[in-house]
């Protein structure tokens, strides 16, 4: 009996994992369908952008055939899915290289900045939100609320420019735009594409600190925006929790106030916070075009914008696909965390 119950549980787990994989696969297929049809619907002629607008009809038709655009749409779609699955996103017109290679270069730049940004947002934003909620109406609550409001209303590019003017040009505390000083460029092998990691792998501490100094300002600015959002949400979740009966129960038991706040009120909201943090992280990974432009950051936001302006559809679709995949990934990850943290969702 015991053994069969255990096997049953394992089978249940496997079934759950299989269902999970199927859901992810289907979502991804949906994403491919959307990017594919966007590529067909937008009034950009991919043939024209390859052959130029002075090509003769014969050249145009030949190119169209070569690109496979004369086949039925469904066939084209499956060919597209196949290409994506085999890692072929086509050639970028503006860089002249395979889009996959471009993405491998630009995505880590955004990933690095966004990850530091979200860490700042979570590590500062959550405690700030909790503090604000436990001391509602106090001076610190007011300050945190004003910060939250600023994060909501100040334009990113303005903050970026002011930050550069003050901390780079004025005080010289941080390095200027770009991911790294140009004379360090290409000195370490791109293993992960994350400069912080690559420089450590290569044992180049000097380059590491240079990369840190470049990363500091833009990721702090990104971090500020997610901090403002996370702190605001944490505050309102906590206010809701602190008025719950079981928080009073904990006080009746004589539990110290810090434990009442963190164990009894904060534990339950971790679940809601995961959604907030996940969304916030995803939106950072999408690439903040403003910040990337101001800081000349060769990230995915910059890449996508340039590709759009050049009608470089392969690059646009490739970047969109990456952003979509990131969203799917983060959503599924928060689902999994949800299930781990919330006994009611198991």
């Amino acid at each position, binding site marked *: 009996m015991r053994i069969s119950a255990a096997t049953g549980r394992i089978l249940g787990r496997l079934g759950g994992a299989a269902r999970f994989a199927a859901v992810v696969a289907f979502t991804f297929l949906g994403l491919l369908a959307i990017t594919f049809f966007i590529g067909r619907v937008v009034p950009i002629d991919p043939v024209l952008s390859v052959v130029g607008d002075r090509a003769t009809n014969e050249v145009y038709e030949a190119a169209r055939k070569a690109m496979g655009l004369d086949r039925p749409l469904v066939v084209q779609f499956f060919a597209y899915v196949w290409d994506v699955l085999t890692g072929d996103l086509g050639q970028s017109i503006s860089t002249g290289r395979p889009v996959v290679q471009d993405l491998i270069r630009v995505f880590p730049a955004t990933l690095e900045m966004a990850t530091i940004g979200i860490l700042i947002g979570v590590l500062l934003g959550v405690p700030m939100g909790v503090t604000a909620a436990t001391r509602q109406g106090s001076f610190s609550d007011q300050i945190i609320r004003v910060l939250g409001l600023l994060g909501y209303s100040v334009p990113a590019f303005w903050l970026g420019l002011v930050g550069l003017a003050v901390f780079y040009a004025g005080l010289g505390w941080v390095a200027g735009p770009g991911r790294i000083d140009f004379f360090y460029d290409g000195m370490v092998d791109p293993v992960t594409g994350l400069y912080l990691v690559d420089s450590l792998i290569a044992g180049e501490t000097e380059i590491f600190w240079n990369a840190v100094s470049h990363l500091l300002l833009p990721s702090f600015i990104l971090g500020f925006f997610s901090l403002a959002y996370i702190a605001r949400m944490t505050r309102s979740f906590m206010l809701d929790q602190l008025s719950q*009966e079981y928080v009073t129960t904990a006080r009746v*038991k*004589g*539990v110290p106030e810090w434990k009442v706040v963190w164990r009894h009120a904060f534990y339950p909201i971790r679940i809601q916070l995961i959604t907030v943090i996940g969304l916030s992280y995803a939106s950072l990974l999408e690439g903040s075009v403003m910040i990337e432009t101001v800081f000349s950051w060769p990230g995915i936001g910059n890449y996508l914008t340039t590709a759009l302006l050049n009608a470089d559809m392969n690059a646009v679709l490739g970047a969109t696909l990456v952003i979509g995949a990131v969203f799917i990934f983060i959503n599924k990850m928060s689902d999994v965390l949800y299930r781990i943290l919330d006994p009611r969702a198991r």
Partner: protein
Amino acid sequence: MTRPLLEIENLTVTFPTAQGPIEVVRNVSFTLGRERLGIVGESGSGKSMTGRSILKLIRPPGRVTADRMVFDGIDLAAQSDRQMRHLRGARISMIMQDPKFSLNPVMTVGAQIGEALQTHRPMARSELQARVLAMLEAVRIDGPERVAGLYPHQISGGMGQRVMIAMMLIPEPDLLIADEPTSALDVSVQAQVLDIIEELVSGKGMGLILISHDLNLVARYCDRILVMNSGEVVEECVASELANATHPYTRGLLAAMPRMNEDREELPVLDRSSWATGAGT
């Protein structure tokens, strides 16, 4: 019993509102030995607020004042937050109304009960576990090992309330306040839960304050009864003498109770003009 367990004199609880301060409890006085005191009254009569102010759980902007508020020789009004924390749970405890809301949804039942004891008496995990299981058995829960690992959403309301009792009694307090402990429960399990409270309370010689809107129930489980209305005590009597209550409000409440062997078309409506409380007008 030389000195009473709890002495309350002129307890007043005030909340500021846009229309000026409102006294939700007004000049309530009573003393309690190691006995069972019932506080009855309708919703908003201030009975829960009385219970919570003994534990100093009224948070600002609410304000509690009293001429005297002494528990076992300790002046409650003079206690700091820290000192109150050592009293709460350990000496004075409170059973809350609805286990659906008053148990932490993301902590196991065992962890919540254990925390109540661990807070006041740090002990080894294995000993704590044994104490929790023994306590669950004391509140007549079958399979305590299994139940200790469950979450509140996995147990019934009656069981939840027994868990609540276990949690509040495990540090062996001297005074238990039970704030409507059965109003959220099915009628069928109400008596069961109250029997457990009664058995444990009298077994340990504790004081009990049972707050309820149910006159019958309070008369059955308590030695003495306070009747509250609009924040004031309108009647104080021995439970067996309840039928001879004199105050019109108490008489009105008694008259409004349906009885088994009679057939009334309509129960009488409480006539509030027959007594003057000066409140709520």
